[in-house]
């Protein structure tokens, strides 16, 4: 590849991106490095190899670089599926690097000696006013993206309370979760009944968006010879009917029987 600066750069960039995406810890940084590795360099290398002798215009070269990279990704998963280890980060990095290396090598062999890079770029001439307009457009687009990804208060959305129950490991009790997606602060009364033998009551205050998880032990259930039903009832004390059950969940502790 000596003498073909663009091909050397492509292979070097592919090696660097492949290596760094595997070792760096930060997701956004890895995305910045993976984007050229996945969406540009394989297509660039393939296009350079295909059109080593029959040069094509820059716009077409760029289009093939992205388009054929997408094709490589679509087909690459199929190749990796039958390879050792399947589809993994290292296998993707290796495959993409090998595609770039192999095609750049092929391009270097086929390209006439002294031929320049298929893509050259000179920055456009931009006046101060034009730069300000472009920057304004860019800032507006960035503001739009930030706004789109920011959760907002949905004033007229109907709030709700969720509740769930799960036996603790070994059936030594239950784990109960209560989450408030109500519009205002809420107060609840929780009553948990263990097979009619024991009742536990708790008062819970939750802000909108807050969750509380309780672990309530019941050692007798683990050694019981019959299944013990556990029922948890939630009363919303600041609701219109504070004495009526608001939510109810249930589960069983103890041995399993054939049923249903």
């Amino acid at each position: 590849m000596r003498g073909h600066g663009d091909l050397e750069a492509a292979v070097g960039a592919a090696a660097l991106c492949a290596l760094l995406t595997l070792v760096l810890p930060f997701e956004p940084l890895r995305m910045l490095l993976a984007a050229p590795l996945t969406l540009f360099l394989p297509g660039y290398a393939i296009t350079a190899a295909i059109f080593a002798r029959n040069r094509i215009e820059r716009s077409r070269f760029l289009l093939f670089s992205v388009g054929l990279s997408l094709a490589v990704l679509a087909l690459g998963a199929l190749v990796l599926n039958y390879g050792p280890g399947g589809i993994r980060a290292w296998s993707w990095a290796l495959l993409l690097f090998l595609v770039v290396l192999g095609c750049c090598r092929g391009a270097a062999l086929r390209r006439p000696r002294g031929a320049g890079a298929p893509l050259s770029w000179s920055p456009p001439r931009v006046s101060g006013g034009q730069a300000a307009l472009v920057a304004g457009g860019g800032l507006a687009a960035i503001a739009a993206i930030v706004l789109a990804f920011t959760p907002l208060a949905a004033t007229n959305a109907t709030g709700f309370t969720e509740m769930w129950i799960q036996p603790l490991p070994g059936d030594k009790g239950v784990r109960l979760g209560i989450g408030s997606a109500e519009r205002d602060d809420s107060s609840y009364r929780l009553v948990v009944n263990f097979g009619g033998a024991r009742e536990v009551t708790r008062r819970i205050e939750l802000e909108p968006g807050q969750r509380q998880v309780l672990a309530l032990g019941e050692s007798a259930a683990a050694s019981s010879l019959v299944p013990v039903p556990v029922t948890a009832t939630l009363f919303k004390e600041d609701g219109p009917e504070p004495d009526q059950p608001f939510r109810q969940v249930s589960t069983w502790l103890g041995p399993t029987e054939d049923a249903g």
Partner: protein
Amino acid sequence: MPPEAGGITADAATFKAMEAGSAQRKRGRPRPEIGHLAPLILSSGVGLLLCAVANALSRATLTPAMPFYWAGILLLAVPIFYRLTSEQASARERLTLVCTLGLGLYLVKVFRDAPLFTFSDELIHAFNANQIADHNHLFRDNPILTATPYYPGLEGAASALMKLTGVSAYGAGLVLIGAARLVLVASLFLLFQRVSGSARIAGLGVAIYAGNFNFLYWGAQFSYESLSLPLLLLVMMALAEREAAPRQALRTWGAPVVLAMMAIVVTHHLTSYAVAGLLVGLSLAYWYVRRTWAPPNPWPFAIFGILLAAFWLFVAASATVGYLSPVLSDAFAAIGNTIGGSDEPRGLFQGGGSSVAPTPLLARAVALAAVVALAAGLPFGLRVLWHRYRRQPFALLFGLAAVAFFATLVLRLAPAAWETANRASEFLFIGLAFVLACACVEALRHWSRDRRTRPLIAATIGLVLVGGAISGWPWDSQLARPLRASAAAGTISSPPLALAQWAEGLPGGRFAASTADAGLLLDPGGKMAIAGRSPDVEDILDEEALAGWMVPLLRRNNIRYVAVDRREVSSDSLRGYYFSRRDRDEALRPPSVSAKFNEIPGVARVYTNGPITVFDLGAPR
């Protein structure tokens, strides 16, 4: 070929001359100017911001948001359309403008849904992508659309980004479809430029194509067709370039065609058949024009496309036959029934059923006016096509596709044929866009001194864009709805999303759920969830009493959890994911649809959030 067509391949003999030119350019060529791009980038940015504000208002359940939204889309697009009508803009500027347009309109879709997928197909494909990432292999089961894992091109590509960077399927999908969008508009531009020899026709052609019914939303989703259609256009562009290439360079152009075709075949069934059909049509068009099967007639690619699609269908993806055949046979039956009078024709603008507010009269008028504008331009475009391009096989194919597009509009009146017509329109609109761009440029030439011509054409394309968006996506679903909302102690999720987030923490177990809930249980819930009529989960969830066949059916299908949703909208794969609103009545199913499951001996009621309750049938006690 006029110089503005560009893209001519050079053989070895001309290579030296090109290099000499390149060296000269390096020495003395003035740096390119950005022309009118700067103000257009500003207007696009502000247009995007308006769209984001409209979606934010809608998510915050505040009104009115619609005026901001349409103003944003028009501000984003119409100045670009106006510039594309200009004679002065360079090919490079036009290409940059259509890329800005394609990416900008893609972001409009992104703003509607961020930061989660909300289209039913997206949830299915995101589930497949997660399955690949979790299990390191392709072809895992999908409980809702069984054919999708056998076309793993999109999800395989997403797995590369997911594995390498750790991003979610949403993040990977966003980047991938964005790149695919760029390929789509750039391929279309270069294809039209090569066929017409005019960058002006090419730019306007892409602008008109953005008005196809599926461009704004359906075609921008994380779904296999959103990747395969750009690849199809890449194939077409490469074939058009191949036609113009010197004889000794023909083989060279075959390589990208073959590679892209292979990628299409493993990505999407319908597009792989469309490629094969397109290549057969193109081969016949070549023969019709040149009376020869010799190169550059692409018949070998047609054979290759047919064999490849058939191989994949019968060897790897035989489940597709069972998936597609009812859709197509129902469509044909519906056409017959509608023509015969045994079925009522499907009403227009009735995508949402009786519970959804009808599309406003003005919006209907805009949508119909857009179709009228398309139809009005067709004869003029066909006339230009016949006079100027009838020796061009691609142009002939575009002319036929343009006429066929209007035939698919008629199919939309047959209820079961609507979907088939809708899918076909995305492909046929390519031809229509070319034909109408020819008509536009002819009008611009004919009335070049009339100052009203350019604004009128830009405004008409704006009408086509807005009309297409209204026709292609229900009016009430154009803008975002509240899926997540900020609250005092963090972010709260809608009831079905809260269910999915709870289910995410479960170690395993298959769910039976209504359509919208099942979608979110797939992604982000990551759970196997079945919905619909096969098996008949729908009746199990909707009936008020427990019938004898229900529990055995659930057991046979290894269902552990039954998620009963009393909201009627939960059956709606478009509207069922969101918060209900305090200022609107919500239709609820009777409490007995949920209470009937309490009768099952040993059942546990493990989750509830009001409208949704989950029963655990597993680990019977």
